[in-house]
């Protein structure tokens, strides 16, 4: 059936049709929907793992057991899973194993703009790169054929514009190939003696894959005008076709590692000038140069941000569209914590106490933006706790009484636990705050090991954060309600004051969770409001100033009451209408 399908959903469909039986992933924009959509097929076992490394190792175990397996992550997630990946390249697979990785050029929802093709090259595994949903589906299936034919894990690389764009696909039937597990110590036990014998196999495999890439239909030449020949892949291919149509010739690469040589040389010989159009790093371009060809690429195209048709037209000579402009500046609209977000009260307390806050990855990273401005470092998943430990070890009493790490429940499970183990083991006087909103929020509400539910919403094992922290050796584990500012303030002061490490769990479910019952929205008694703007300090999108008085947007307000605790005139009143 011809239908419009999100790129990530098309990958999930491809996995279904390829007979995949096991998927383990950790959510991360823009990769999350692959696993969410796959979980809708009853035939595929799907799960959220605590992190990408565990997910990839689990998928490896499933492929070893003889069923096609998959795991997905965002680009930075592949860093976490790089350890198993680089050695799985040596062991190879039993049933097919494909690893989805989604890059985020333009950093719509990421902390860096790394190009995951480097991982494919460094790990010496093939990488396929679809340019729309139809290819996402087809390439997912092709990846399993390559995986089993060449005995290798295969990377399937998405990017935001392919992952989060819908285009037309045709679906097919599911077919489930099954293999038997056979003990093979020389292949699967990577100790030095065995690994030494596997490495040459990896190098030979790359040669064979390069030969395969020369003639594979995943790479194709579209001859048009021969004045300019463009080598491209992924969403860049779409921009090239949009701007130049058939006026140029195109070598469209679906396999971006390893890159073909003869195919590129033959293509170059047919055109007068050669250009490479690729987002982020000049990987294809440098390969082309090593073949001794003159080529245009990053000399005219940027290494930062995503491309577009206008950008290409400007750089390579095409029609550039321009629009009209308004005579006046339009204020920016940055993302904000939602009205009723439980993180808000906690960050307000941290700011009020003038704390140095080392942060982590999640919705609560928005604690860094004004007017809260209450976060001073964010690096990667789990880094807050490690960084706090190092910070306090150097500054000692100078920082211990006013510095904290903040980390979400899902991020803590992902890679915060090991940081906390280090605090316990090497004994820094650190205060770690776990922001437990009972869900993985930023990526769109995925369950995690602390929520008690699995990917399908069914009851699952539930890790008790307090018991876990105590088992690690923390005697001081406190729980606060972030809607209660007085309690947050008191507990924070106490834990910063004591001369031993402590954990504060700030617990309240995400305000957007469907099961959360909200109070009636608040309203402002304009007779009482003196316009002091105390309530504006928390950066709630539901509160604004109108004619010198505070005003509450009753379509946004969920009655959390944090603002009313700041009001000295008791001007916030309940509207009494439960949402």
């Amino acid at each position: 059936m011809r239908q419009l399908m999100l790129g990530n959903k098309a990958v999930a469909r491809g996995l279904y049709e390829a007979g995949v039986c096991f998927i383990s992933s950790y959510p991360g924009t823009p990769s999350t929907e692959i696993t969410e959509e796959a979980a809708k097929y009853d035939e595929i076992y799907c799960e959220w793992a605590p992190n990408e490394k565990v997910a990839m190792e689990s998928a490896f175990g499933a492929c070893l057991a003889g069923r096609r397996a998959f795991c997905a992550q965002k680009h930075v997630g592949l860093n976490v899973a790089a350890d198993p990946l680089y050695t799985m390249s040596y062991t190879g697979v039993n049933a097919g194993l494909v690893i989805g990785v989604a890059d985020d050029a333009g950093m719509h929802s990421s902390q860096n703009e790394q190009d995951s093709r480097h991982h494919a090259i460094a790990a010496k595994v093939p990488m396929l790169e679809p340019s729309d949903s139809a290819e996402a589906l087809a390439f997912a299936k092709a990846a399993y054929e390559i995986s089993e034919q060449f005995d290798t894990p295969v990377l399937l690389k998405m990017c935001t514009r392919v992952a989060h764009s819908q285009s037309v696909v045709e679906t097919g039937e599911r077919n489930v190939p099954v293999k038997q597990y056979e003990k093979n110590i020389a292949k699967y036990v990577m100790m030095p003696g065995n690994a030494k014998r596997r490495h040459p196999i990896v190098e030979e495999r790359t040669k064979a894959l390069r030969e395969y890439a020369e003639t594979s239909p995943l790479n194709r030449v579209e001859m048009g005008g021969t004045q300019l020949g463009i080598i491209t892949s992924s969403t860049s291919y779409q921009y090239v076709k949009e701007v130049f149509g058939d006026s140029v010739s195109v070598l469209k690469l679906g396999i971006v590692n390893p890159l073909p040589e003869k195919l590129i040389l033959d293509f170059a010989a047919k055109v007068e000038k050669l250009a490479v159009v690729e987002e982020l790093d000049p990987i294809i371009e440098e390969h082309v140069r090593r073949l001794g060809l003159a080529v245009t690429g990053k000399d005219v195209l940027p290494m930062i941000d995503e491309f577009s048709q206008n950008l290409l037209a400007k750089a390579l000579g095409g029609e550039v569209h321009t629009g009209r402009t308004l005579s006046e500046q339009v204020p920016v609209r940055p993302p904000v914590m939602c009205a009723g977000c439980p993180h808000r009260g906690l960050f307000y307390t941290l700011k009020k106490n003038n704390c140095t806050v080392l942060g982590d990855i999640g919705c609560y990273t928005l604690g860094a933006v004004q007017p809260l401005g209450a976060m001073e470092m964010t690096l990667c998943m789990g880094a807050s706790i490690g960084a706090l430990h190092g910070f306090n070890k150097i500054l000692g009493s100078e920082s211990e009484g006013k510095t904290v790490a903040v980390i979400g429940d899902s991020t803590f499970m992902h890679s915060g636990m090991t940081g906390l183990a280090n605090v316990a083991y090497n004994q820094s006087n650190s205060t770690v705050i776990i922001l437990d909103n009972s869900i993985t929020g930023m990526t769109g509400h995925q369950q995690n090991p602390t929520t008690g539910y699995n990917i399908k919403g069914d009851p699952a094992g539930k890790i008790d954060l307090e018991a876990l922290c105590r088992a690690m050796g923390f005697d001081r584990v406190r729980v606060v309600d972030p809607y209660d500012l007085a309690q947050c303030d008191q507990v924070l002061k106490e834990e910063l004051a004591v001369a031993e490490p402590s954990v504060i769990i700030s617990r309240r479910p995400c305000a957007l969770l469907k099961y959360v019952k909200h109070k009636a929205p608040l309203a402002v008694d304009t007779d009482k409001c003196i316009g002091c703007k105390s309530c504006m300090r928390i950066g709630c999108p539901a509160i604004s100033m109108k004619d010198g008085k505070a005003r509450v947007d009753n379509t946004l307000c969920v009655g959390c009451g944090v603002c009313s605790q700041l009001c000295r005139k008791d001007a916030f009143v309940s509207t009494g209408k439960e949402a």
Partner: protein
Amino acid sequence: MQTKNIMIVGVGGRGSLLASKLLGHLLLSQGYDVKVSEVHGMSQRGGSVVTYVRYGDRVYSPVINQGEADYIVSFELLEAARWLPYLKEDGQIVTNTQQIDPMPVITGAAQYPEDLVEKMKAAGAKVDALDCLALAEEAGSAKAVNIVLLGRLSHYFDLPEEAWMASLEANVPAKFLEMNKKAFALGKNA
């Protein structure tokens, strides 16, 4: 047919994904090649969001650039103004007149510009502005702003009413269908 471009712009988390889903369904049913590009994740948390809908004989790029949009459908007035440079020379803006203050306005670091509809018209844009929130509430739910806007947009399309209704039926839950049909009609006839 040359590719046509519709931008749906607004504030994160307020129903633009349903609008683009419905449009995609509609245009596919009319035999076009269609691409829809969305924003997920961090950008959704109350920030400025944009969804691109493109259709024609063969659509390549999933995104719309400056000066390319045939239609800009806006859930909020400031967002219509923000994306104005994306409007084609003879393009049409269909916008809700609702104003939602962004954080810099809330904190007092910036002012919400006044008379935006007039200013956009002065810049040469064709602007169809209506109070979609009031119409949505009249239909039965403040959440139906998206459908009111689509009803208004349908005004500019030469497509049979049944096709719009079929897409509405395929994309909204049955229990809200009548309310959404009313919202659509209110937008169309406003």
